[in-house]
């Protein structure tokens, strides 16, 4: 492991940081990165494609760690809209609260939010695992297609609206379920898989405290009874 690279954003630009990270794209290893004095800057550590470790101190703006591949990004602060948007793989851990649309459209990897996430967390997720230690806002997992959204706190209104095949687990209360989202049986397989995910996310809750929600599958399959309408 080569020496840690430090980018203090009071003296470096976001472009300096991202270009250094992109210089490693495709590499099988790289140095650790430390980012200091983030002050809500947008697009920090976006588009990484290497198994590097990035630690960010401060609050981040929009799309932090977007499109992440392989990297492990930890943010010691809050995040603006679109944290880890379209994450492909790797781990993004946020120590504070996330704004809207965290992990939107994520295809793989793991996003851990230790605080709360606001509206539309996991909107259109396509395979990412999202673990939120606090609560999520309204319309979370809207049109979610694949992956798991795990909420250790409470879920806001219209959870899982127009859901496809993603799985949702909630430990606290659900304000209400969105269209075509329903409570599902928690099978031993689901319990074991959730337990493994909670451990990986370092959450201190047993899987047995969660309830599972999924798609009723009434919205996205054509109903043959409607054939006469055409």
């Amino acid at each position, binding site marked *: 492991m080569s020496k840690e690279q430090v980018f203090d954003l009071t003296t470096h630009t976001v472009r300096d940081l991202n270009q250094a990270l992109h210089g490693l794209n495709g590499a099988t290893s790289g140095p650790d990165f430390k980012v200091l004095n983030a*002050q*809500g*800057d*947008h697009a920090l550590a976006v588009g990484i494609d290497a198994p590097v470790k990035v630690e960010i101190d401060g*609050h981040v*703006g*929009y799309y932090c760690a977007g499109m992440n591949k392989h990297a492990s990004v930890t943010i010691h602060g*809050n995040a*603006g*809209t679109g944290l880890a948007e379209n994450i492909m793989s790797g781990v993004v851990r946020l120590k504070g*609260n996330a*704004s*809207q649309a965290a992990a939107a459209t994520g295809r793989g990897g793991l996003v851990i939010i230790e605080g709360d996430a*606001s*509206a539309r967390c996991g909107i259109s997720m396509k395979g990412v695992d999202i673990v939120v230690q606090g609560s999520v*806002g*309204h319309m979370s997992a809207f049109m979610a297609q694949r992956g798991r959204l795990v909420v250790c706190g409470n879920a806001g209104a219209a959870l899982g609206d127009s859901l496809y095949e993603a799985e949702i687990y909630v430990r606290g209360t659900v304000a209400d379920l969105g269209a075509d989202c329903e409570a599902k049986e928690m099978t031993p397989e689901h319990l074991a898989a959730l337990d493994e995910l909670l451990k990986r996310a370092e959450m201190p809750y047993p899987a047995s405290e969660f309830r599972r929600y999924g798609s009723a599958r009434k919205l996205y399959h054509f109903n043959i009874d409607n054939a006469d309408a055409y």
Partner: protein
Amino acid sequence: MCGIVGLYLKNPALESQLGELFEPMLLEMTQRGPDSTGFAVYRDPAPAGALKLVLQNPDLSFDWAHVAAALTEQFKVDVDFRRDHTHCLVRLPVAEADLRAWLAAEPRPFTVVSIGQHIEIYKEVGLPIDVANAFNLKGLRGSHAIGHTRMATESAVTTAGSHPFSTGSDLCLVHNGSLSNHNRLRRKLEKAGAVFRTENDSEVAAQYLDVQMQQGATLSQALTRALGDLDGFYTFTIGTSDGFAVLRDPIACKPAVLAETDDWVAMSSEYRALARLPGVKHAKLWEPEPATVYVWGGERAGAGH
């Protein structure tokens, strides 16, 4: 898009630094709205029975003395006026209804930007840095300020279409979003006596709040009613003579961050605009909930007036 910012000082000792604290907030929102910029500052109140008005004419050599003379002649009072770039701050002892009647009596060669005892609004087409410099924002003292950087979507890029909008006395509103029922609401408000200056949807929201408060509502009550009557996307920040408020629609697509310390409350579209405020590291920092009224001060009924 559009960027909005607001700073409400709880500690009067900071009032001399209002402009200094507020200007970087506004400038940080340049990317969200580079076409026009405006700000309202609440300061230096006119005595009871007197008013401050801010007027605008794009001609930098416009004859404001002539306007002041006309006001003196009409109301038989001393009129104090000070040119500030394209704007002019006028102070005179006059009843608001009489002043409004005079303004409406015939077409005037200027635009009325704000009327009140506390409020002054300055707004222009142009980059935030240029507008802030033109009106020496950095040097302004006061109790609270609200600003807007505009990226126009619905109506024209003009000074009149810039925010903040102030339709009544001392109330102003900045808006990020777009209202979908503003035409119907405009007709309803016109029937209630409201006079509109622009085609802008945000002016409708300002008038709406103003009419509610004229009918006796507190700022908080007016905003609660707005949740039922306004349809569309909005994050609003509102100022009154003694109040500061934030409201987001129930869907809450338009961003907002609030921060509060013992010394101040600050609102912005994005955290980065707050990042340089003193004590922000230990501030209570949160995203305002959808369809929830946040108000500081402003609990006097009809406090806009």
